[in-house]
């Protein structure tokens, strides 16, 4: 289902990034893990999952470490959905 406009490799990479983002969220909020599979990738997941500023920082830190992408504070406002986050990391070469 990731094969739309992307080459197979790129689709796999994007799926991997989604997995990575979801697993970072599951790490800071283990009790949310059951909900993550059904999470709509186009909603503001910080709001949806009631994550606070500390969760936010921890997720950002974890993803920056894992992908090597430096995420600036000015980028935060657009990193609100799983899809946006995935695209941001993919574009930054994460």
């Amino acid at each position, binding site marked *: 289902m990731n094969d739309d406009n992307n080459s197979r490799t790129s689709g796999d990479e994007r799926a991997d990034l989604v997995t990575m983002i979801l697993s970072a969220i599951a790490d*800071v*909020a*283990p*009790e*949310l893990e059951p909900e993550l599979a059904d999470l709509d990738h186009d909603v503001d997941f910080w709001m949806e999952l*009631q994550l*606070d*500023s*500390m*969760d936010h*920082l*921890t997720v*950002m*830190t974890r993803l*920056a*470490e894992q992908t090597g992408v*430096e*995420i*600036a*504070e*000015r980028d935060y406002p657009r990193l609100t959905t799983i899809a946006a986050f995935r695209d941001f990391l993919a574009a930054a070469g994460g």
Partner: protein
Amino acid sequence: MSGNDTFEYAMPSLGADMDEGRVIEWRVAPGDTVHRGDLIAVVETEKSDIDIEIWHDGIVEEFLVDVGQLVDVGTPIARLRRVGADVEGSPATAPTSTPSPSLAPSPGDRVPASPIARRLASERGIDLGAVTGSGPGGAVIEADIVALSAAAPGADGDERSSPTAAPAPRRSPDRMRSLIAERMATANREIPHYYLSRDIDVGALETWLAERNAQRPIAERILPAACYIRAVALAAARHRELNGFWIGDHFEPAESVNVAMAISLRRGGLVTPQIERADERSLDDVMAALQELVTAARTGNLRASWMTGATITITHLGDSGADLVHGVISPPQVALVGFGRARERAWVIGGDIAVRPVVTSTLAADHRATDGAVGSRFIATLAQHIDHPEDLL
């Protein structure tokens, strides 16, 4: 009882609202040598699983409770042999780090404790040996006794102490709710609260933080919450009348400023672990401690030493959307500071109107301990610190 060569380690009180707990995992085995500060077991409380530390060096002799057995706070759960105890008649109990003179054990008493703690314990019939000391050298300090006695209101010969070997169901949100209910009802009934508030322009703080964070890798960035903790700690250090405990009929100022942070748990309820001596630590250090506490609270890995000894508490509801919070004080503390969300407001500066991010800070204080004038000076100091963020470093 094998005399003075051994000592018992009791189920600690991991927060003033805990009255029972169960060991769910031993991290050590009989025969192991343990050192002060080592984690020896994981205890399940109503709120969270907490790693408990030992405060004396020793060799584990025997476990006195089974894994899964629910016991009251103060129940001996392990017996340890003092290090060097087999050397006949040697006074082997002195802690490796010499406690300050006021905490030195008195003759014939093997438990180091501060004078206030000693008096309180005798007043309340608490065995000092059964208390996990959180002071220097593992000494029992006032806060330990206070937390312990707050957890065990009245010696009701309760049935809960009967060992229930069958593993009971994991803590339920209902049980946590009822603990919070009981505690908050007591606080509201016994503490005559007064409330003060002050709107604070956090523009300077936000700008300063943004500039600072822009130059730092993500793992070293600071959240406003850490700044609030520092500001409250510095204000509490200056206005000591709000930093301590109401005990019986009088206020006892605390020796240090240990700031507890209310952390909500997504499955419901909250925990209030503390950051020790937050007035003496750097902002980076407080931020690291906060991150550690929040992660531990959310993943159920809180350490026992974080759960006792708080001298003032912060509730920061800004993240969840409230403008201001009039909180309920956590007894025996006498003050609780609240922060609402930062929101843009029309703000008058030097005769002009500007749009500024504004946070409403509130103070709930115990009127038995202080009057409004003290609280008012506290909140003015707090505002001043937040307006000069470079002082929080």
